[in-house]
């Protein structure tokens, strides 16, 4: 049975090179209304799992069901309409010449109305404290600024679900707290997320469920009680 409000990983295996599996037969049901944290040492396969969950990588074997639909049959574009994905290295997701365009361009391509776009860009720049650098080149920003811009650009799409690969990395305490606040607000609006992280402050504050990965397997599955 497949559940509508979930991402379901079934017998999922994957390896970059033949014979060396990085993800080993993972079976898990992720509730898309909750916040799920994935923890584990470097190299345990968190990023790889995230990339599989958004279709950047194709499973070696097994299936992924996104809201009940087999992801193998969906295009990246269709997945992208539902899920917002933050790359571990946010540089990888920039394709514009200015901070502002990074948010704007996609909305324009989608043919949304001008006033809506202006309004959206303005509020996101404010929310993520990017106003003072709106005309900078994205790749020349500091790590924290890149992280915030990448998130802002993702949220412009109003995704139903987020997959965030180490979102608090490179942020100082102030910025991190404001990010946690933003994510909490999104959560209150009904947007669930999977977050790969090492940040225990973050985990303790917001997570509903913690999956621990070790060498490509999920070795612990814990619900967080507040």
């Amino acid at each position, binding site marked *: 049975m497949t559940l509508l409000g979930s991402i379901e990983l079934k017998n999922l295996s994957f390896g970059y090179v033949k014979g060396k599996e990085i993800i080993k037969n993972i079976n898990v049901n992720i509730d898309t209304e909750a916040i799920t944290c994935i923890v584990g040492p470097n190299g345990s396969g968190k990023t790889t799992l995230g990339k599989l969950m958004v279709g*950047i990588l194709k499973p070696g074997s097994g299936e992924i069901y996104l809201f009940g639909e087999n992801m193998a049959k969906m295009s990246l*574009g269709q997945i*992208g309409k539902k899920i917002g994905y933050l790359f571990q290295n946010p540089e990888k*997701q920039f394709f514009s*010449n200015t901070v502002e365009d990074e948010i704007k361009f*996609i909305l324009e*391509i*989608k043919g949304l109305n001008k006033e809506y776009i202006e309004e959206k860009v303005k509020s996101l720049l404010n929310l993520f404290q990017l106003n003072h650098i709106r005309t900078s*080149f994205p790749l020349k920003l500091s790590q924290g600024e890149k992280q915030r811009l990448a998130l802002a650009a993702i949220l412009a*799409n109003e995704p139903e679900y987020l997959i965030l690969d180490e979102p608090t990395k490179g942020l100082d305490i102030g910025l991190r707290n404001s990010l946690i606040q933003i994510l909490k607000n999104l959560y209150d609006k009904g947007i669930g997320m999977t977050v790969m992280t090492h940040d225990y402050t973050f985990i303790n504050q917001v997570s509903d469920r913690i999956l621990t990965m070790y060498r490509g397997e999920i070795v612990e599955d814990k619900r967080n009680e507040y």
Partner: protein
Amino acid sequence: MNIDPRTKLIIVLCLSTLAIFIKDILFLSGILLITIMISLFFKVNILQVLREIKRLLYVLLAIAVIQSVFSTDGQVLIGLGKLTILTTVGVQKGLEFIIRIMIIISSATIITTSNSREIIQGLVQWRLPYEVAFMVSIGIRFLPILREEIKDSIVAIQLRGIEIKKTPLKKKLYIYSYLFTPILVSTIIKAQKLSMSVEMRGFRAYERRTSYMVLRMSYVDYLIIFFSFLCATTLAHLYIDQSVLTLSSLKRMSYFVYNSIRLRKFL
């Protein structure tokens, strides 16, 4: 078996020179076959190379049509009134182009089976200044990076909910042209970072460099080089004469063999 990067360079030079200078489609296909066999020998992932080339099929079509419309040779295959859309000559030109590109790309990937350090060393031992050799090898290294960069950008755009396959052509072209500048700029930034880190580690600190790694050609290398030259000139000859070996071409060939032996000493 470890083949010297210089040997690989010579093979590639022979193959791509032939590809550029031969116009006969049969000859070209023969050379392509040879190229593929050599690539397999060097354990190049030829399927992947061919998959990459598949995307050039549009160019093949474009060339075939353009050649057909603007030249009057050949038999008309498809025509609209007086306008010829596809002729035999057009198809032939298109095929020639694609085969040529296939030869050049798959032979060039042979070099990438050596690591960049070996390639630099090979060029340096050919008396090329170290800076130039370094530049060449960085150039070879940067091409795949550029390709990755383009791929990443397209993945990123799709992940923001753009269904690129369903986008109308005009908009698609607009998106691609939009990507051009950022990709160029990011590549330049990468190059700047690279040059900085290279200078920091004392690149060009001294006039002369000594290397821990010294390449030595084995007799296998000499043999391969010799056969590459031999095959290349034989093919070129066959192509020029379009006749089976005549006495004069045999004479010229033996002269060439003599020259290659001299070249061997030089190397």
